[in-house]
């Protein structure tokens, strides 16, 4: 009964993914077959740790088995995330409620909704990795699972390993346990040399990003407050608009009350205390530089080597999520009416994530078809054999085609202007035409913003911004409007 109720909630939450349309949104890309054909058989550093799974599996499935990308993304990413998360959390919590909490909490939904599937896979594996590390048996198998998790996101692995070390602190640290972890991390390192070695030898974007992270950026990225982190509500829930923070939704505090009420019940096992500590540590760190004692996070960032990997403090949500998945079922199972309280909890949980159940989430939960004008533009560009670049105003739209022969340049990057008006002023300047010619830019493209991500006013899509941009570019004398691409404005630069 409880198991079925949990499955129904999960099916409803993830039902928007049961579609043939693409889920491309946020960080999740859309790939034309022509893009996939350019993938190398050797892991490319630009895809970092994700290379083998993202690049090589995609190449085999889409290019050789001819499975469309729209199907591949679901079969190899979105569906496996749900199954893996359910199974892995069930292995740790031994509870259907635990799996429900772990798979459908606001943090998990915001990760997958934002298209961060690498983080999501590592997150899905975390309970399994933690369970194996806590047991300290089957060293090879544990090492391989840790290696797999690293290949999806090493930051989540670092958090999982630290969580295991804290557990050893609870039950007593021994050399054997430390040796066990050391060997597992070593195995993971060996299997992940494909990205570690090139990363150490190159100036990859991630290395630059880490070098550029400042205390100011840590403060900026500290979106969550303590009341949000301790009650497991993501600060961007439910719209998932970057930087848009919501008032505290107090109903989520009931979850925290349930979780910490587990401390009342007997027996107070070491595991319950451990997960309560993990919940507090995670809630404290996930709020980043926000009060109380936000200086601690800044101190850790400044003085602890490697802590700069966590410039986005929300990664620490992993800890309260893991803890609540164990503590809430424990509290319910400690009552006399387990079935009644379980069903009551499922109702409560469904209420807190009602936006997901009602299909009101955005991002990958809003599937879309690729606008036909983008397919036409892709064919138009592919048909030209000479090398050139395209300049996208303000940035390349997610369905805009780019290849090694015809790379896309974002106007924001080229001009150094963040606003669209600044970009247009740059293009209207007298040196712009010469600059574009010198960079071999053949076309300027004003994208059709079908996902509402580019032409924004107060973080919302604004059609007038798009219209004005298109209008101003059309007036430039040295640009010649090219072909018919519907709402996409394609202009050839007259050299």
């Amino acid at each position, binding site marked *: 009964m409880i198991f079925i109720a949990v499955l129904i909630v999960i099916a409803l939450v993830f039902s928007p993914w049961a579609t043939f349309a693409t889920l491309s949104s946020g960080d999740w890309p859309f790939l034309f077959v022509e893009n996939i054909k350019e993938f190398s058989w050797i892991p490319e550093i630009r895809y970092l740790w994700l290379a083998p799974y993202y690049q090589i599996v995609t190449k085999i499935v889409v290019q050789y088995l001819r499975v469309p990308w729209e199907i591949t993304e679901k079969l190899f990413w979105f569906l496996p995330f749900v199954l893996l998360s359910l199974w892995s959390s069930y292995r740790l919590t031994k509870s259907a409620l635990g799996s429900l909490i772990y798979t459908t909490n606001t943090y998990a939904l915001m990760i997958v909704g934002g298209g961060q599937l690498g983080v999501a896979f590592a997150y899905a594996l975390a309970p399994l990795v933690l369970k194996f590390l806590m047991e300290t048996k089957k060293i090879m198998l544990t090492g391989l699972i840790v290696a797999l998790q690293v290949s999806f996101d090493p930051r989540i692995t670092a958090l999982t390993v630290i969580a295991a070390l804290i557990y050893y602190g*609870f039950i007593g640290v021994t050399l054997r346990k430390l040796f066990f972890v050391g060997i597992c991390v070593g195995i993971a390192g060996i299997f992940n040399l494909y990205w570690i070695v090139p990363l150490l030898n190159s100036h990859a974007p991630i290395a630059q990003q880490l070098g550029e992270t400042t205390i100011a950026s840590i403060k900026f990225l500290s979106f969550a*407050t*303590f*009341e949000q982190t*301790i*009650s497991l509500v993501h600060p961007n829930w439910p719209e998932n608009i970057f930087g848009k923070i919501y*008032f*505290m939704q*107090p*109903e989520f*505090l*009931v979850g*925290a*009350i349930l979780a*910490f*009420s587990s*401390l*009342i019940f007997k027996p*107070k096992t*070491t595991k319950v*205390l451990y997960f*309560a*500590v993990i919940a*507090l540590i995670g*809630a*404290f760190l996930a709020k980043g530089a926000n*009060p*109380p004692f936000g200086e601690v996070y800044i101190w850790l960032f400044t003085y602890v080597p490697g802590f700069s990997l966590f410039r986005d403090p929300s990664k620490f949500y992993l800890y309260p999520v893991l803890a609540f998945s164990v503590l809430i079922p424990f509290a319910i199972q400690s009552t006399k009416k387990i079935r009644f309280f379980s069903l009551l909890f499922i109702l409560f949980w469904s209420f807190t994530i009602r936006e997901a159940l009602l299909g009101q989430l955005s991002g990958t939960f809003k599937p879309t078809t690729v606008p036909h004008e983008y397919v036409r533009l892709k064919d138009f560009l592919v048909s030209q054999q000479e090398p050139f670049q395209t300049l996208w105003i303000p940035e390349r739209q997610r369905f805009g085609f780019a290849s090694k022969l015809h790379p896309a340049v974002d106007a924001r990057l080229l001009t150094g202007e963040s606003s669209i008006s600044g970009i247009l002023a740059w293009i209207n300047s007298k040196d712009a035409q010469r600059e574009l010619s010198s960079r071999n830019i053949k076309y300027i493209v004003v994208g059709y913003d079908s996902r509402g991500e580019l032409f924004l006013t107060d973080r919302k899509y604004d059609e007038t911004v798009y219209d004005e941009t298109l209008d101003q570019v059309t007036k430039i004398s040295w640009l010649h409007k090219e072909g018919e691409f519907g709402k996409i404005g394609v202009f050839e630069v007259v050299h």
Partner: protein
Amino acid sequence: MKPQDIAFIIVVMVLIALRRPNYFIYAGLSCLALAIPLFTLWVFFTAQHLVWYAGFFFLLFILFSLRRQHKVQ
């Protein structure tokens, strides 16, 4: 220091003097429960502080429990 903080410090001191760790959990849970209506009524400052206090109460409970476990061992 606000009146809420002073009240919190007094409660903590009383609970420490009583040496009953379970009281820390009850205090923490009460703080969380009290914060819910305050958040609903947009009394953010006090509600926010109550959640901080709750976290601190839970931490104190865990520290007391661990100390007791350690002594038993």
